[in-house]
Every structure is written in C-alpha cells, then in structure tokens.
C-alpha cells in the first residue's frame, strides 16, 4: 500500500501548493472584486499567484507580462519550488537576455484554473473547506486574461510595454491585444493560433479521456475521496508531448535505439529509448501537475476562437489596434503550424496594425519556443529594442 499512500501525498502536496504557493507572491480578490467569467457567473473570492523580476521604472512604462503555456507556471526565470529545475524560460528571461531583467519589469502569473497558486480545481473552495474539483467553473482564455488584468490593476500597471507568450501563452497575448489594446504597447504571440483546430481539440480530448479512464480520477473527486489519477495524467502528458516534438527531432534524439540493452526483450518493457523517455516525461509531470487542472486548461484552449468573439471576422479583433505585433512561428511546428501564424498576420494587415512576422527554421517542433533558438532570441531582442525606442525606454530602468 506504500504506493497508494505516496500517491495521496502527491495529491495533498498539490492541494497545498494550489492554496499556498511557495516562492511566489499572491494577490487576493474578495467578494467585492469578482471575476466575470465567460460561463456567465461572477467568481469570488479568488487568488492569483505571480512572480516579478527586475524593477518597475518611475514612469511605470517598462512592465512586460510573460504568459505561460498549458503546463507552465509563474516560475519563468527562477528555480521551480516543486521540481527544483530552472525557470521554464530562462533561455529568454534574465539579466542580459532578450527579456532583460535589468531593463524590464517582468511579471509572470499562474493562470486561473491552474494549480500553482492561482485559484483552480485543486484550490480549496471556501464554502466547503475542501478542494473545488469539478465544481470549479469552466474558464476560458479570456477569463484567464481578465484575471491577469485585475492583477495588473492591483500592481498599478496601466500599460504594458510588452506581452509575450508561446502556445497557450500566445493565445493569451492575442486575447490581451484584442481585449485591452490600449494597455498593450507591443505583443509577441509565439507558436500559437487564433483558434484551436479540430486536430488540436482531438489531441486534448485523448488526454482528457486518459485521465477520466483512470479509476483513481473518481469522477474528478480524487482530492476528496483519496487517490490521484497519476497513470491517466501521465498518459495524457505522453500523448501531448509527442505533439510538441517533430518527427525529425524525435528521430534525431532517439532513432530506434534500445534503452540499456542490446536486443529486444520480446516483452512490453520500455525496450526503446523513446518509450523510456516518454514514460519519464509522464511520471515527472504528475509530480507537479493536477489532473483536474489539466482538464480545465485544455478545455480553455479548445474554446479559444478569437474571431468568433468578433462576428467571425478576425481583423475586427484588432481594429485600429495601436499595438506593435511580432508574430513568430517555427518551421517544424505541426501543432501550431506557420499557416496559423500567417492567418494572424493577414488579420493584422487587414486591420492595418503594425506587425512583424518571422518564421524560425528549426527541427525541434512546437517545443522550439522554449528551447535554445538563437534566431528567435535575435528577433525578440531586436523587436523589443525597436519598440523600446518608440516607447522612450532608455538603456537603464
């Protein structure tokens, strides 16, 4: 029974982190500050966990919001309190990096529905004193952005110098530019789309079904009844992880190499390196992520369709936008292919917005935005330099 107990401990740790995140600041919003949800209700109270890096200048003009992806969190440029790993975007964010923490004031907040300190299904429902579970309302990308706008109000930041993010983070960037054009001086949506495609939704559904098929999911009540759908969540992660990589990258990394053996074992053991790698990805993911959060956030992405909110015409989402855009895609990203970024660019052109668009050559697939891609760094750095000049940002904060 030792394993069961261990599972329970992970689940309890996740609930603890959801309520009292480590190494993070937390903004509380009471009943007087409800979050208006697309689902049609006002949600209160709630909290947003966030991290900041650098210093806000006297004019409050150098703030940059970094939006995290599906399984990311606020620990963008500092050690993760659960995994002990470095920040998920330390390649891009830090002193002297393209998102230079000596020049910009970086804010990164956990999304609503997440499990690292912003209110989500693993958080405690104040009415019952127990985790929300599936009683938590379904949230959308627009709800996520609305909650973060409330955080920035709280921090006294009226206007962001830049909003940047990849994948689901990129969706938030686009939503920011559409919902709050006057608050966004420049926007960098990376490896994303204005809507989730049928294929994207299909992959997410496979992940959700894997979680729900795990008996320990218990109809989403595992935090209440004990257990943790680790296997289901791990399988969901394994499937999703394949979509983040390219065929070429997988082949380059693993090929058909065997894992610690010379010959096949004629069993269903992880003979191949790629199997072992995926299993590791799945197992390490469940240590830090809540299965219900995964359901909620994949749903938020599925529901994202920016054009639909603007009469089916994407260009209307960016009408008379004062924002400077820098759209970036990657050649081998088949989850959010370049054609999706091109659609964003077309819409921005049709609304006469100021847009740059670059496609970075890489074989690393969708994950490329998180990896060491010097061409992307040069583009982000150059774009922000230009925007900084236009914003009147000096070289010192």
């Amino acid at each position, binding site marked *: 029974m030792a394993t069961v107990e261990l599972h329970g401990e992970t689940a309890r740790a996740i609930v603890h982190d959801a309520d009292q995140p480590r190494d993070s600041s937390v903004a509380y919003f009471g009943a007087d500050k409800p979050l208006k949800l697309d689902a049609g209700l006002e949600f209160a109270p709630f909290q947003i966990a966030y991290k900041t890096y650098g210093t806000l200048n006297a004019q409050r003009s150098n703030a940059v919001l970094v939006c995290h992806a599906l399984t990311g969190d606020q620990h963008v440029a500092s050690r993760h309190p659960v995994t002990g790993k470095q920040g998920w975007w330390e390649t891009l964010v830090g002193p002297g990096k393209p998102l230079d923490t000596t020049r910009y004031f970086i804010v990164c907040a956990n999304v609503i529905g997440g499990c690292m300190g912003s209110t989500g299904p693993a958080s405690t429902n104040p009415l019952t004193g127990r985790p929300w579970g599936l009683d938590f309302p379904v949230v959308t990308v627009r709800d996520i952005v609305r909650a973060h706008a409330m955080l920035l109000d709280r921090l006294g930041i009226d206007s962001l110098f830049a909003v940047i993010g990849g994948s689901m983070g990129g969706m938030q960037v686009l939503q920011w530019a559409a919902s709050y054009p006057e608050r966004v001086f420049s926007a960098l949506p990376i490896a994303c789309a204005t809507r989730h495609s049928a294929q994207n939704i299909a992959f997410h559904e496979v992940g959700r079904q894997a979680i729900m098929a795990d008996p320990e999911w218990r109809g989403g009540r595992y935090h209440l009844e004990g257990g943790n759908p680790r296997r289901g969540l791990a399988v969901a992660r394994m499937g999703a992880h394949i979509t983040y990589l390219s065929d070429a990258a997988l082949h380059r990394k693993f090929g058909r190499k065997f894992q610690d053996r010379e010959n096949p074992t004629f069993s269903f053991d992880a003979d191949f390196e790629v199997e072992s790698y995926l299993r590791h990805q799945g197992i390490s993911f469940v240590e830090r992520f809540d299965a219900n959060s995964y359901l909620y956030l994949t749903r938020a992405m599925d529901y994202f369709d920016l054009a639909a909110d603007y009469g089916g015409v994407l260009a209307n989402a960016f009408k008379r936008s004062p924002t400077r855009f820098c759209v970036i895609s990657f050649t081998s990203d088949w989850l959010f292919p370049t054609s999706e970024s091109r659609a964003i*660019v077309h819409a921005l052109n049709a609304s006469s917005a*100021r*847009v*740059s668009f*670059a*496609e970075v050559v890489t074989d690393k697939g969708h994950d490329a935005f998180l990896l060491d891609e010097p061409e992307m760094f*040069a583009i982000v750095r150059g*774009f922000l330099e230009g925007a900084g000049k236009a914003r009147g940002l000096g070289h010192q904060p």
Partner: protein
Amino acid sequence: MTRTGEIATNGAHPSTSARVDLLLVSEMVESGARVLDVGCGDGELLRILSENRNVDGRGIELSREGVNECVAKGLAVIQGDADTDLADYPDDAFDYVVLSQTLQATRNPRIVLEHMLRIGRHAIVSFPNFGHWQVRLQLLLFGHMPRTEMLPYHWYDTPNIHHCTIKDFRSLCKSVNAKMEKAVALNAWGTPLRLNAPWWFWNMFGEQAVFLLSRSS
C-alpha cells in the same frame, strides 16, 4: 507629369554607400508618411526612410533570411509575397507603397501595380530598363539573352520573369489609370538623365527608372 529635377542623387553624395535608387525613392516620400516597402530585402530602404524621413514603415519580404534580419533590426517586416499577400491589405492603408527592383520578378505585375495603387495613395516603382542600349545590343549583335550589371542572371536562373522597358511601363501605367507624378531615369553611372530629353532617349540610355504614381481621380 513632370520629370523632376529636385532630386539629389548620390552623384552629389559620393560618401554614401546606399543604393542610388533607394535614395531617389526616399526623396520622393513625404516626411512622417506611412510606407509599405514590398520586397524590402534587408530593410535598407526602410532604415533610410525611418532615419531621414521619420516614416512609419512596414515591409514585405519573400526570403526568410531577409525577414528575420529586418525584424531583428526592429523593423516591422513580414514574410510574404507581392503576388499573393497585397490582397490582404485594406484600401488606403498607406501613403506610399514602394516596389523597388521587384516588379519584373512578380508573376502578375499588372495586378501587383493595381493593388499598390489601391493600398497606397501613391505607388513608387523602380525597375531595370530592358530597353537600355546595352540590352538591345546584346540581343541584336550577339543573339543571346542580355546580361548586364543590373541584370546579372542567366536566362535559366533569373528570378526576373517579366522584364519591361520604360516605354512598356508607361503604357502599363496608362492602362491601369495611374497618374505619373514624377519619373527619373538613371544612366549606368547612377546619374539622372537630362530632364528635357525625349522619352525615347530615356528608354535607350536609362539603365533603371523610378516612377512616382498616384491613382487618377
């Protein structure tokens, strides 16, 4: 129309290394204007325009290397194709739409020019003149496809699929109802030809030409 004499060319500025035709184009653009540079290459014209003319410049470039270089310089440039992507822009989005040394490489120069005049209040087009005497001479005397400093390609590897002469371009302007506001022809040394020279002289001795056009009302 007038063939302008107000333009300072690099003949007067030997110190600058910028391409003569780009300087000519930049002299045709009003300060503070909104400009779309179609086929902007490494962004040299956009740089000149923003430094000398304080314009709000955007660019379209076909080559990925060119685009990424431009964006890293802070220029608003997208990867795209003059033949397919101009259709996305709304009417009157820009004060000037510039096509420098690219018209002859488009699949449908007439449609490209029409889009330029729709998107911009003005269009500025520069192109190598296929009527230049050296070009004519090579075909006439030697019987092979001409290769010059401006047109260095072989017939089989050239991106230039729609060559035209200054005369041809003028008749295209007429047929799309474009008003010719200014024109300059440069000889092989990058010096503007005499303004009072007849058109046939331009067509014979102009190695390249720059036209400022607008929609006829």
